[in-house]
């Protein structure tokens, strides 16, 4: 019991740290945004690119399923950003703005280049780019990790996208809702559905392994 407790406290602290990190990033984006808008600061532009492009590329990849194409779309997004730099001060949440543009560019790309374009998000095939930990980190078998991976892939498309945005890119429900043009409640439900489905795959007999794992760690 005691060790459970330590474990929980431990992981909760980790989480506090994570969310602080995300807040930090958001502040950072604000500063970069200002520098680009006011001074056309190339350095700030570069920092912003380096900060956001990996996540944005992952996001685009989910739509277009090609790494090169995703990178090109992200590049287009940043070209657009540079073009509208004079108007950046008016943009409240730059991250949401960039994701929204990225999504629109992806949809345009799909409409142009796919034979049977499906441009309704609910029907689109989304390739999830969600990373899990290694079996060792998770203290579960590799087999279970595969099953979870599979489960995420089989979630309804919209649910996959929502889960990816919230978990992977650290979006708030409000931000994710804005990007995808759905309601906050829908986001909340989709995240819940994904979490519940994954939870069902985490074996119930786990506690003993987990217990020894924690004990040896502490």
């Amino acid at each position, binding site marked *: 019991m005691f060790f459970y407790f330590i*474990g929980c406290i431990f*992981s909760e602290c980790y989480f506090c740290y994570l969310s602080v990190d995300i807040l930090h990033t958001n502040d950072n984006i604000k500063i970069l945004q200002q520098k680009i808008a006011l001074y056309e600061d190339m350095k700030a532009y570069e920092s912003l690119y380096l900060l956001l492009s990996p996540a944005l590329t992952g996001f685009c990849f989910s739509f277009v399923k090609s790494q090169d194409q995703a*990178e090109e779309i992200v590049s287009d997004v940043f070209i657009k950003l540079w073009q509208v730099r004079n108007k950046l001060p008016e943009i409240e949440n730059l991250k949401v703005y960039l994701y929204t543009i990225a999504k629109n560019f992806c949809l345009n790309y799909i409409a142009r280049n796919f034979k049977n374009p499906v441009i309704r998000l609910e029907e689109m095939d989304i390739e999830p780019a969600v*990373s899990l930990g290694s079996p060792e980190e998770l203290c579960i078998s590799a087999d279970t990790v595969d099953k979870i991976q599979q489960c995420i892939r089989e979630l309804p498309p919209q649910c996959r996208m929502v889960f990816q945005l919230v978990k992977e890119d650290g979006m708030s429900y409000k931000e994710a809702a804005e990007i995808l043009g759905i309601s906050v409640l829908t986001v909340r439900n989709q995240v819940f559905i994904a979490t*519940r489905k*994954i*939870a069902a795959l985490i074996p119930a007999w786990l506690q003993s392994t987990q217990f020894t794992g924690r004990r040896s760690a502490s």
Partner: protein
Amino acid sequence: MTDEKLWLLVSLQLSGEATPSELAELEMLKQHDPQANARIAVMQQIWAAHNMRVTGELNKAMSFDRHLQRLSNHLGAPVLQYDDENSPENAIAINNRRRLGYRWFWIGGGIAAALILIFFQMRPGNEPGSSPKIAGNTVSTKPGSKSKIELPDGTQVWLNADSKLEYKGDFSGKNREVSLSGEAYFDVVKDKSRPFIIHTRTVQIKVLGTAFNVRSYPADKTTETALIRGSVEVTLNAQPDKKVILKPNEKVLIGDAVAESNKNTAGDAVKTTNHEAMIVSNVHVDKKDQEVYETMWVKNKLAFDETPFDNMIAEIERWYNVEIVVKNKKLSANTYTVTFENKTLDEVLEGLQFSAHFQYQLKDGVVTIW
């Protein structure tokens, strides 16, 4: 049932969306069901995994380089007057009318920009001596921005800051005619049957298929045509019988009035006519990179080659969209040769400060130099 509730609370907690009371409820449930704790811990680990996604620094830097390359290639087809339409509201609206959205958005924007410009053109009191008017499309850039456009015949045009290009809708006539105020680099598609003609306030330039740079800012008092390949024929508006045919890597400088004080390197042929000075010389090639100074702006390089101080200041004003006040008149005496690539205004001024020996201050978008 409690299980459902439990995972809902966990999902809220992990998303950072749980309220304090929800967190307290989650703690309660955990107390009642200690077995769930381990599974929750695994779930937390799964959620935390995103932090471990690492993209190599080198990889990122390379992708940024590729991006810069694309950015400079684009030079912003959409940095036209109508980029006002380009607000996030629109970006989101596109989403709702996806398929129609984008194309009509640009066409609509283009028409709006053309209408606005035609409106301005119609207004009386247009300054005399401006370029001959051609009804149709107008593309213009603001100070501080550049643009690249493709004309209906496939000709590529890079438009430098604070410039304006007008052309007839579809080039359906016998000639392909455009009129230019400011600076532009043309890469003209070959069409022997339909010459491409550029009107500026002092000259008209007739070409068949070629690449060249035209610089005709009202403030410059000169019009410069620099040829990169092919051949062009430059005719004075005032004296249609005066013609110059340029060979590759030659340029012609035409003054608005009397011949200016000679600012070209020695050995240039100087022809002075009654009203307008025509100076034919070679384009200036950077010895190190073999790049032509006249067209470096196309690659987003701010380049000066034995440029008089005042002209340089005017160029910087346009490039960065600032106002520069020069208090020290002595500075005008020198000429400067320097290239800036992707530099901020501050970096440029700092660089010049040392060779030109001046002090400067940037305040409210106005630079004061003394």
